[in-house]
């Protein structure tokens, strides 16, 4: 199992999604979900939300496999689940689909295909959380992997159609954008880096509500060609969950910035420290980080390519970190 995503839902709960199957890219891979009670601190048994056959039937086209899910809300407050599917080839042949739930994830609409590329509409994937524009449109960070590797921000209307997009990066070395907005105008983005060393997390900024973005620049934080998670906590610091190494995913850490990404300090190591349990495959990746309404922070990530791990902490703990 791999690539967890989560959102807070009514009743003091979180709902998480991930994909799982016999191996990555296998035809038996399905999207699963589980619900977490914030009060009782436990997760419900997992249940299947989307299978390849279900998606194929409703999209009325052949599908080979399913991939990354991402969950968020639209301007009507509905839960929207975006997920990757592939009809032909590998991940470079991906497209993104969207399902909507009116009842907090109990039931879902049939999937609808997003069209984001003129090249057979392939090579579009998701990893970062969607955000809302001030006009109600949804901003969905996506990336492409066909020949180039680059990120874009799609604009989706209420029906989930792509109605515009802005290029976040270009070339062959940046993917999986994660965007964090601080106001209607100002946002910062982070991207996984797949280019020549030194391997560093890429960062980009906008000051005009996402109309223009400055070119991605390398930060001081390492990146072993791995996904990143980020969240701006209410009233202050920016958090980044990332693999704190240039070559492998054995160290998963938490960094904090008090100046919206200009400087960082490492405040915690989730995995890779002395004494932490080691998975058979020592790989801890694809972090998803979010804050619930009560202020607690939740981090979900792939543990050893076999489990999804959930870590919860509060502001008191965070502020007590050296």
């Amino acid at each position: 199992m791999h690539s967890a995503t989560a959102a807070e839902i009514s009743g003091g709960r979180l709902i998480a999604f991930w994909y799982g199957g016999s191996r990555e890219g296998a035809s038996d891979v399905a999207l699963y979900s589980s619900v977490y009670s914030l009060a009782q601190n436990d997760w419900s048994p997992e249940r299947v939300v989307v299978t390849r056959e279900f998606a194929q039937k409703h999209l009325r086209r052949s599908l080979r496999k399913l991939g990354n899910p991402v969950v968020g809300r639209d301007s009507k407050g509905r839960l929207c689940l975006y997920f990757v599917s592939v009809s032909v080839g590998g991940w470079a042949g991906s497209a993104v689909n969207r399902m909507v739930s009116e009842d907090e994830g109990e039931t879902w609409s049939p999937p609808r295909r997003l069209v984001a590329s003129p090249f057979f509409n392939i090579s579009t994937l998701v990893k970062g959380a969607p955000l809302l524009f001030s006009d109600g449109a949804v901003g969905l960070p996506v990336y492409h992997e066909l020949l180039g590797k680059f990120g874009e921000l799609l604009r989706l209307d209420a029906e989930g159609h792509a109605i515009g997009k802005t290029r976040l990066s270009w070339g062959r070395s940046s993917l999986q954008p994660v965007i964090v907005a601080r106001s209607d105008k100002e946002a910062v983005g982070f991207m996984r880096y797949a280019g020549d060393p030194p391997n560093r997390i890429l960062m980009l900024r906008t000051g005009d509500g996402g109309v223009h973005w400055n070119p991605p620049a390398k930060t001081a934080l390492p990146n072993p060609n791995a996904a990143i998670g980020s969240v701006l906590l209410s009233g202050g610091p920016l958090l980044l969950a990332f693999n704190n190494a240039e070559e492998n995913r054995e160290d998963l850490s938490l960094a904090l910035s008090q100046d919206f990404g200009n400087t960082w300090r490492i405040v915690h190591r989730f995995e890779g420290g002395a004494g932490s349990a080691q998975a058979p495959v020592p790989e801890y990746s694809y972090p998803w980080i979010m804050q619930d309404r009560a202020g607690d922070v939740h981090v979900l990530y792939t543990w050893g390519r076999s489990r999804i791990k959930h870590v919860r902490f509060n502001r008191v703990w965070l502020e007590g970190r050296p």
Partner: protein
Amino acid sequence: MNSANATLGLLGCGLASLAAVATAIRLRRLPVRARYAVMLAAALAAFVPIGELSIAAYVRGATGDLSAATLVLAGAACFTQVTGRALIGHRDKQALCWLLALAAAFLYPFALGWTRFDPYALGFGSVEFITALLLMTLAAWRARLNLVVLVVVVAALAYLLGAYESRNLWDYLIDPLVSVYALVRLLAPRTVFRQPTNQSP
């Protein structure tokens, strides 16, 4: 609307499949009754599900929804193969192929993310793009290039009606299949694409 989009997409992919089969087997060389029989059989094969999906759905999985240019050329190819009569003149088709090749050269390299410039984004209702397309269409109309005008009109109507899942005008005008066809046609020796005779065998 999702279902209507899917149905139209499947019809387009099925039509393109029929045109490919009819052209590949040179249907017009068969007796007239055999042509209709083959087309009927091919249509059944394309649209009737085998197992979970139809052949059209497999094609759609690989190609996505096909543009007006592909559908107009596919429809004309089917007509020609069944009736033995050419619908599209050489000059008309050459002009369309040149325009498709130029559009593909403008659109696809940039769509692969080589630069910050993204012409595909212009298809989301850019005034500049629509104005350029209108001027090009008027020029084609003055030059009596009716095929070009037909393709643009069909694409514009389909875009305005939201016929497909896409809300990008480019997707209604052009796709990679017809771009490859146009390039091959422009680059290949002329004899490969000679017009069929009007005589039935």
